[in-house]
């Protein structure tokens, strides 16, 4: 048997699953004592180049409330052509097409290496992908120009048969008709009036003509496709048109008086975008891509008034309950998000502005629908441009790394129930036998909708062991979990990916050692962090920290505690939202980076080495590369910086110095190439203003308070009142003892 490390790695590679425990305590009581719940991170669409999808329908358990998919864990009677469901023990006969089944002729789904398998199914006509651009025109000329170029460029990245639509907004909202020749047509809505979906559809002419009898009834998707074609057109057909249209986009023409913000009707624009899609293409994969350069300032969903003298809400305001639009706007966007989610449409937010743009209020749009959030300073930055481009990146098959309209269903064996999920999904409120009453994250259901998925999308699933202490699981028993993910592939196929995992039960009293050794520290850290973030979203900050402190005592917790996911100090509400958004969807590796940034040190003394994220690592003759996921910081130590300034790298005899300077750049480039969203890239040096990004992350082992106490130790003092790890640990130890007492 391989080490747990290998086992974990193997499982992750095959199924995209990392469990907090790889041996499960066999009773509820024991499980709760373990503090870290039985849980796992699951990446539904983990890229599996080695996994060819099968071209048939999965075989389902015939029990109505089970419907589990045939999997390698099922017991099969080849002679009787019968299989037993490993979740409900229902005996099912194989469908006729499996007539030829035998021990030597097994379908793929019965083979252990296919514990994760993907089916391609034929259901209804293939529906093209839909991209609906919602573009803010209240931008600076330069920004708008950059945005227009990005959008035009993106047209070439879209699948040719994808439907594309354009909504622009400022004070008014315009839906552009794309099919027309000659005059450019658009439908205009005012930004202040909330419209019901029905009204929107009526106004867009998406209703059947009155003559057909029933008035006000939305078109069947079929007809709707025809009717909507004026707004959503295949890229290949309107490429030129749309390029021109985008080219002619003007800044919002309404004058903005001195001392005012431009009137930006983001709320209604989104409502119309969502209304349009739900009227025309319900339950079809679609992306609403919102590009905004500032906060919504009018109408429903407004985040701040148009008076510049009233600043946008800060955490401080929020804590003082002084953010007058917050609740209303949040509620509004949540309602929108839920509508979009129900119809399988996702919403991306690309917010580029120096100030906040209302992500706090709008985040749910993306969080609930699996959309992206990208935050930048300007559309005219590579951060945005590259990131946006990367949305359309393709995989090894040349297919887009995106999927739509996913539904994830979880089935568990009897001893286990699902408590909830944390990730970019919404509950479908499907009750079932495996649903726990004890909710963690989004619970109370065994099905979730994930409107948009990427191969990196990772959900945290939390389980509850329901087996009672007095009903031990038979020795060698295994608990099983099956994840069934139905989704629309980017090539418009409907696919179903089924992952079935199983872990052994262990008696915590007798096998505590085994259980301990099966602990996956990284996964647990992320899982707990997600729980923390989830709670932070919904509860008061200090409480979360206290909860976290109570829950866990591990190294990374120190950083987690200091991370922007939990700490709002020095972050705007938008930034917090942004960071949290990404934290709850990235895979384990990325999540770990987020929790504890990686710090590499480059020097003449050896190859690059990871060093402690500590102020003591900041040395004059080092180059540091820090990756916080959101930022990539290259920091030149004092000496290095002087050398560089002196131009040594230009001299042939100092070629090695040049190489030293180059090394972190190359590494950073590698990261930049793959990371989504593209991190903020910072190249700084000792004493540079941007060095703060580094300084704020490292453990302040040396501060202005203790610098001299630490004596001659080199390193950079950090001017902070935050406690250092040392202090933290000390406290923690005390606490641990006292609590134990």
């Amino acid at each position, binding site marked *: 048997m391989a080490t747990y490390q290998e086992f974990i790695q193997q499982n992750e590679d095959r199924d995209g699953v990392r469990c907090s425990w790889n041996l499960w305590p066999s009773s509820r009581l024991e499980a709760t004592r373990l503090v870290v719940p039985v849980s796992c991170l699951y990446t539904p669409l983990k890229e599996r180049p080695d996994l060819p999808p099968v071209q048939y329908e999965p075989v389902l358990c015939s029990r109505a409330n089970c419907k589990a998919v045939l999997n390698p864990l099922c017991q099969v009677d080849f002679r009787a052509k019968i299989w037993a469901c490993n979740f409900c023990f229902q005996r099912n006969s194989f469908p006729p097409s499996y007539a030829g089944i035998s021990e030597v002729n097994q379908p793929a789904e019965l083979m252990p290496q296919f514990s994760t398998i993907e089916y391609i199914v034929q259901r209804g006509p293939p529906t093209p992908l839909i991209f609906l651009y919602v573009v803010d025109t209240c931008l600076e000329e330069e920004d708008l120009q950059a945005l227009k170029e990005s959008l035009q460029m993106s047209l070439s990245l879209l699948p040719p048969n994808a439907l594309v639509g354009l909504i622009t907004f400022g004070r008014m909202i315009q839906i552009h008709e794309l099919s027309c020749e*000659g*005059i*450019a047509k658009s439908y205009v*809505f005012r930004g202040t009036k909330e419209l019901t979906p029905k009204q929107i559809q009526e106004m867009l002419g998406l209703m059947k003509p009155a003559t057909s009898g029933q008035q006000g009834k939305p078109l069947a998707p079929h007809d709707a496709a025809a009717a909507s074609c004026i707004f959503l057109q295949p890229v290949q057909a309107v490429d030129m048109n749309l390029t021109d249209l985008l080219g002619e986009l003007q800044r919002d023409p309404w004058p903005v008086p001195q001392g005012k913000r431009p009137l930006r009707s983001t709320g209604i624009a989104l409502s119309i975008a969502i209304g349009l899609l739900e009227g025309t293409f319900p339950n079809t994969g679609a992306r609403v891509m919102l590009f905004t350069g500032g906060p919504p300032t009018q109408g429903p969903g407004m985040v701040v008034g148009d008076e510049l003298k009233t600043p946008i809400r800060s955490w401080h305001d929020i804590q003082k309950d002084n953010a007058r639009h917050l609740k209303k706007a949040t509620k509004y966007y949540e309602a929108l998000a839920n509508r979009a989610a129900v119809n399988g449409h996702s919403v991306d937010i690309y917010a580029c502005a120096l100030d906040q743009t209302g992500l706090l209020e709008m985040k749910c749009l993306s969080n609930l629908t699996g959309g992206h959030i990208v935050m930048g300073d300007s559309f005219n930055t590579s951060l945005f441009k590259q990131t946006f481009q990367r949305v359309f990146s393709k995989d090894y098959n040349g297919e887009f790394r995106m999927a739509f309209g996913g539904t994830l269903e979880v089935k568990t064996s009897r001893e286990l129930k699902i408590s909830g999920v944390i990730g970019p999904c919404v509950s479908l409120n499907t009750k079932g036998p495996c649903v726990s009453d004890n909710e963690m994250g989004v619970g109370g259901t065994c099905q979730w909708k994930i409107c948009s998925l990427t191969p990196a999308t990772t959900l945290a699933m939390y389980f509850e062991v329901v087996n009672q202490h007095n009903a031990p699981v038979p020795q060698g028993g295994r608990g099983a979990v099956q994840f069934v993910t139905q989704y629309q592939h980017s090539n418009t196929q409907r696919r179903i990916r089924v992952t079935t995992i199983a872990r052994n039960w262990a008696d915590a009293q007798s096998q505590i050692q085994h259980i301990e050794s099966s602990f996956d520290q990284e996964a647990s850290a992320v899982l707990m962090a997600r729980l923390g973030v989830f709670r932070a979203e919904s509860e008061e900050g200090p409480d979360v920290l206290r909860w976290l402190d109570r829950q866990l005592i591990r190294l990374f917790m120190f950083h987690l505690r200091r991370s922007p996911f939990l700490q709002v100090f020095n972050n705007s509400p938008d930034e917090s939202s942004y960071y949290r958004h990404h934290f709850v969807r990235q895979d384990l590796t990325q999540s770990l980076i987020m929790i504890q940034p990686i710090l590499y040190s480059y020097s003449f003394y050896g190859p690059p080495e990871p060093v402690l994220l500590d102020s003591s690592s900041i040395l004059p003759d080092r180059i540091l590369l820090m990756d916080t996921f959101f930022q990539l910081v290259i920091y030149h130590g004092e000496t290095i910086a002087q050398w560089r300034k002196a131009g040594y790298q230009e001299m042939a005899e100092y070629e090695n110095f040049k190489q030293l300077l180059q090394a972190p750049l190359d590494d950073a480039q590698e990261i930049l190439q793959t990371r989504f969203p593209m991190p903020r890239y910072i190249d700084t040096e000792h004493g540079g203003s941007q060095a703060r990004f580094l300084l704020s992350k490292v453990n302040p082992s040396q501060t202005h308070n203790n610098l001299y106490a630490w004596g001659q130790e080199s390193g950079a003092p950090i001017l902070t009142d935050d406690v250092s790890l040392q202090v933290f640990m000390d406290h923690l130890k005390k606490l641990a003892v006292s609590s134990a007492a």
Partner: protein
Amino acid sequence: MENEHVYLQVRDELRMNVNQQPHMATPYGQPQPGYQGYPQPGYGGDHVPSGYPAQYAPYNGPGSAYQQGPPQGTRGPPTSGAPPVSGAQNYSQFGQGENQNGPPPMGAPPQRPPVSQPYTPGAVNLPGPQHPYGQRFGAPPVSMQHMTNQMASMQVGSTAPSPAGPGYAPPSVSQAAVSAPYTTSAPPTFTPPTTATSQPPPTEALAQAPPHSYYGALPPVQQPFQNAVPTFSSAGPTQPQAPPPVSPQSFPQAPPISQPPFSTAQVHPGPTQSYRGPLPSTQSSFPRPPHPTSQPSAFPAGPPPTSIPSQLPGVMQPQPPVSQPSPYHSGPPTTSTGFPPQVGAPPRPSFPGMQGPPMASQGPPMASQGPPMASQGPPMAQANHILPTQPGMPPGPINASLSGPPPQPGMQGYPPQQNGAFGQVRGPQPGYTGPYPGQPNYGAPPAAPASAPAAPKRLDPDSIPSPIQVIEDDKANKGSEPFTTGVRGQAPPLVTTKFQVKDQGNASPRYIRCTAYNMPCNSDMAKQSQVPLAAVIKPLAPLPPDETPPYLVDHGESGPIRCNRCKAYMCPYMQFIEGGRRFQCGFCNCVTEVPPNYFQHLDHTGKRVDCYDRPELSMGSYDFMTTVDYCKNNKFPQPPAFIFLIDVSYNAVKNGTVGIVCQELKTLLDYLPRENPDVESNIRVGFVTYNKVLHFYNVKASLAQPQMMVVSDVADMFVPLLDGFLVSVSESRVVIESLLDQIPEMFADTRETETVFGPVIQAGLEALKAADCAGKLFVFHSSLPIAEAPGKLKNREDKKLVGTDKEKTLFQPQVSFYNTLAKECVAQGCCVDLFLFPNQYVDVATLGVVPTSTGGSIYKYTYFQAPSDQERFLNDLRRDVQKQVGFDAVMRVRTSTGIRATDFFGAFYMSNTTDVELAGLDCDKTVTVEFRHDDKLSEETGALMQCAVLYTSCSGQRRLRIHNMAVNCCSQLADLYRNCETDTIINFFAKYAYRSVLSSPTKNVRDSLVNQCAQILACYRKNCASPSSAGQLILPECMKLLPVYLNCVLKSDVLQPGADVSLDDRAYLRQLVSTMDVAESHVFFYPHLLPLQKLDVESMALPMAVRDSEERLSRGGVYLLENGLNIFLWVGVSAQQELLQNIFGTPAFSQIDPNMTSLPALDNPFSKRLREIIESVRAQRSRYMKLMVVKQEDKLELIFKHFLVEDKSNSGGASYVDFLCHMHKEIRQLLS
């Protein structure tokens, strides 16, 4: 005898006298002459001294003349015994001048009345009487007031008078003067002349009590003068004997001489004389010939009676005419003769007889022929005379006669003839007689008795006052002299008369017309008379090229100078005092300091030295530049904008309007109104199309293609774009043209049938709001707005409600939404013009709310079809777009203390009781203002009114247009009746009634109209006319057309709809009339009917119109009828082939295409001239009139007949004759 009354005896009971105010005037007239003379001389300055004397002289002259008259009277009948006595009194009353006449009349009062009545018609009598009696004095006065007045003016002018000149002139002069003179000169002058002492003055009408009594007496006298006299004279002189004429002539001459002084002294002695000279000649020549003919017959028959009887017995119709004419003449003659001889009973009997016979005997032919004849004047008269003969003769002869030399001469001679008539008894008389249908009657009366039994009891149409006659007389008398506005209380020429205006301190009648130019001094009088006191104001009326547009006055940074208290603007009525340091307001008498920079010394008369350099001190109308204080929000306005909102629903696309509008706009946009023709218009334009959603267009110059923005949120309208919606035409021309090219294509295949309307206006309003400017919306709309949106309407057309108490709801808007919207539009200065192209009910009553509240117009093209209606629509559109227009206007009418503007009619909105707010005010829009007393007015100062309109010009300037108007005040009802204008009264009545249908059942509205009219006439009869038989209908001269016009109003589609009249049409007309000026309302209610077969290709003159009655149409003729909305070409079945060939290019009646909308352009003089006429008629109207060809006995003829307003209408409207009888009955009831 009653002055200038037409006595018509319909039955024994009904006698109609049209009291010609002229008579009144005449008496006045004479005095007036003095006045004028005085004033004029005064004006003249140098002349003054001489002038006065001269005037006096004239007076004396007149007096002498009068005296002479008496002599004459003595000579003739007048002297005739008894009459003199009564007459004498009368005479005295009449003014000395007429004494002569008086006597005669007196002597034969009864006779005269009859006679006079016939004459009443006025002119006729006048001429007659005067001449014979010499008394042009008498005559003149007698002669229609118009005549006289005109005459007066004529003389003054020199030209016009000249013809009538000699004889008339004097009188006329006197009359003219009358008005002014009243107060001052009149008495003196009169006194001298009249030995009558006190009476004289009174006689002049000044004396109230006396007047009445006088009237009683006088009227007869006057009438006699005019009517009777004329008749007499005519009859008498002409036929009877050469002598009379001679004498008359001599008289005339003599008078002329005397008169000349007047006129001459004042004006052009020479000319007058010369005129006289000519006149006589012409007259003599003309008149006589005719007279001879016509009269002869009558005369031959012997005295009127005889002739009449003979005729009656003879040929009923044909002869009747003859007889009538003869009667007329005869009548007159009779009277004349009667003076002496008949004086006794005969005359009167004649009346009844007259009526009887005329009615029956004359029948249609006569009437038809007669009237036109009459109207034309002398020629007419001749014609008439001829006609009589003609009666026997078919139309042909008539035509011939008409067209023949006589008419022309007549035409030309008109003035002369009249003059002649006046001057020469005979000449004029004939003419007059002719013209006056009444005369025949009069003439007939004598016969009547005899004939009465035989003849039906119907009233002879020819015997009742003829609009055509009045119009023609006015043309003849006032058309050739400029009308100067300096004289207070002077009624301007009729709207049908072409004249030039000289602004001398009062607003031109093109801007303001009043119902009465002598307002009662107090409310009791006003109530008693029931004459509405109103002014019809057209603030931005266009002026003919030969008149100077209002000057622009700039008082600098402090803005226009105004009275401190009432805020009236500086005007000629401000009296400067204390050496010019202060001025006293003419309206409220408050004294205000003159700002230093405006100070100017006064001359010895108390006038500012710079009076004539400053329009605001010397003119009736002028503009002020304003300051920022006069602007909304204290900000100078932006240039206005025009927004075109085009319905592109299925109906609109199908009937072609979308294409037509778009095509037309491409060129039309180059003709947006501008103040300086060399500069580009400042007006910006925007475009919207709509069906049940709205499409806005971005036509910014920088765009390669226009952009369309659809707003489907019609429930809550807004404007989707700012920049690029309203653009300058020159900058965005390419984009605009591209847009206009593409709109028809884009919607060519539309299936959308539903439309909205409220949101469309809201959209335009919002756009103007967003641009912060005023402007005008042009909405092209096709159907009832049933789409779900604010202002959605339902079809509520329910003909069952017509005639019920609920009928009024049909005129009310069905939802209040549009009222609110209109209010908002007004606040923004958003004027809405609505072009409707309905195929079915669209609820004009509701859709029209906004246009009519914002100073906009509604144009309706029912069943629009591009080929046939395009031209009309395009012309309307062009005019509507191009015409001068002001925006965001506020009109305020200030008046002298004592009266107050209490009610306003027109297309506007009022948020308080004094300010008329017009979002848009174009050059066609008229506001009628009613005044009521709230105190007493003074005769000395008269009643002043100042209409100030603050508006934004099309270049974005904020301006004030000021119109000042002063009228006299009178303490005598007679003065009121003598100086009112029926056309204006009708304008007021129509607007009043058309508004009343909103709140009362139409029947009540009609009844109250009739009632008020009856009261007006009864009051006159009671207070101003001489006592006479209750059976006589006596009408004041100035109002003798009131019944016929009122009847037209009563039977109009709004008040009495036929079964085929849709509710939309009624609502449309109702709203249309509310903004009409007097000229438009006149022709609208009494269409203009031209006999084309009488068209003289060589002459620029139009043939004389004929009365709107089928009886006047000849089967052999072709007629052109226009009412301001339509032109009909009626073709008689037996029209001459040559005529048809000339017009249609085909000789066959059957080959005429009734669907043609324009006449073929044929290369013959007739065709050219006819098309010219049509064009010129169209050019006069604010709306393009589509031509419809109506063939006699064709189905379409029904429509045409609808416009023959003197006939009974299908909808139950009474014929003129019937209505007159009805009116008479009403009056009698009131009197008893």
